[in-house]
């Protein structure tokens, strides 16, 4: 299973969900597959789950999706304990775990290539629906299926390292431009003003 195949399946299911991605490969591939205004493409690691959690808490009636990586989750393991206690029902986290720091270009192994099991850690932290997904058939049923469930989902998708994202043009949308497009989309679909982009 490669990440791009999972993201293709996910992109086909997008309607009004909000999607937060971390750097790096999943950000590039997702921006290529989905041009949706509800995409927030963060330019850094270790922050996507936190930002997605804040969105999920602020907008409990909207489905929020975090697209993250093993390296990024390892950088912010405290998120697991917080999610395990808050359990926002409208949040689904997909962790694309290729076992390497692929973005570094030398692909040295992450801890998940060794003894570390992120899904087990998530379950231990209190996330009830946390599981490892190892093939595309399971991703279709369990992973995509979570989009319609009313429960926090945390899916560690074991993927082969793929360098496909290096062949895809990187998103050229500036972080601020992306933020404003995202917030304007929320204003329009939520029918309310987002406070900080208000008065000029």
């Amino acid at each position, binding site marked *: 299973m490669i990440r791009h195949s999972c993201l293709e399946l996910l992109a086909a299911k997008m309607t009004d969900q909000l999607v937060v991605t971390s750097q790096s490969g999943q950000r590039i591939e997702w921006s290529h597959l989905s041009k949706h205004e509800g995409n927030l493409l963060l330019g850094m690691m270790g922050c996507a789950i936190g930002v997605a959690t804040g969105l999920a*808490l602020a907008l409990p009636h909207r489905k929020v999706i975090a697209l993250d990586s093993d390296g990024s989750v390892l950088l912010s393991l405290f998120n697991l304990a917080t999610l395990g206690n808050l359990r926002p029902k409208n949040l689904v986290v997909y962790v694309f775990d290729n076992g390497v720091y692929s973005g570094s270009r030398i692909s040295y192994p992450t801890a998940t290539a060794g003894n570390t099991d992120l899904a087990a850690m998530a379950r231990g932290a209190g996330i009830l629906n946390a599981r490892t997904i190892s093939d595309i058939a399971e991703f279709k049923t369990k992973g995509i299926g979570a989009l319609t469930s009313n429960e926090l989902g945390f899916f560690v998708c074991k993927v082969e390292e793929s360098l496909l994202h290096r062949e895809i043009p990187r998103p050229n949308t500036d972080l601020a431009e992306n933020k404003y497009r995202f917030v304007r989309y929320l204003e329009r679909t939520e029918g309310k003003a987002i406070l900080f982009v208000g008065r000029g």
Partner: protein
Amino acid sequence: MRDELAQRLVQGLKGAGIDFVTYLPETRLSQILPLIRTEPAIELIPTSSEQEAVTIAVGATLGGKQAAVYMENTGVYVSSYSLLVTGKQLGVPILLVIGYLGGVPDQRNSFLYATIGKHTISVLEGLGIEYQIVEEGEKLESKICDAVRAANAQRAPYALLFAGEFSE
């Protein structure tokens, strides 16, 4: 901190439009937590690290909340990465309500805190985060309102560092 100050601080947050607070508790201002917990206008979110207290608050702000993060100043060091890459780089306003341990006006300063306090301002300045040190209750409510307005105008975090009367 006197109960009256804690109540004014919480009412000041509410009056400034704060409706979402993430936190990691500390010693100087902790009396505000039970008050916020019983304040229906403010959603209170416990976190496991100041770094995620910031990112969760940023997400909530993007979702339409007026968010604050309550932390000790040691949390400024812990959260400096997320303050920089989500607060500053992405440009999202959040109010930082900080117990200023070890600063000169900290009434409980000691060798345990002095080093922490000594570097807090330079770290905030290094991050480009504006701040104000609040040592007494005079004009507390307007200082909080001004801070929230400044954060929104700058599209950036703004810090209120509480010491003096707030650290007694």
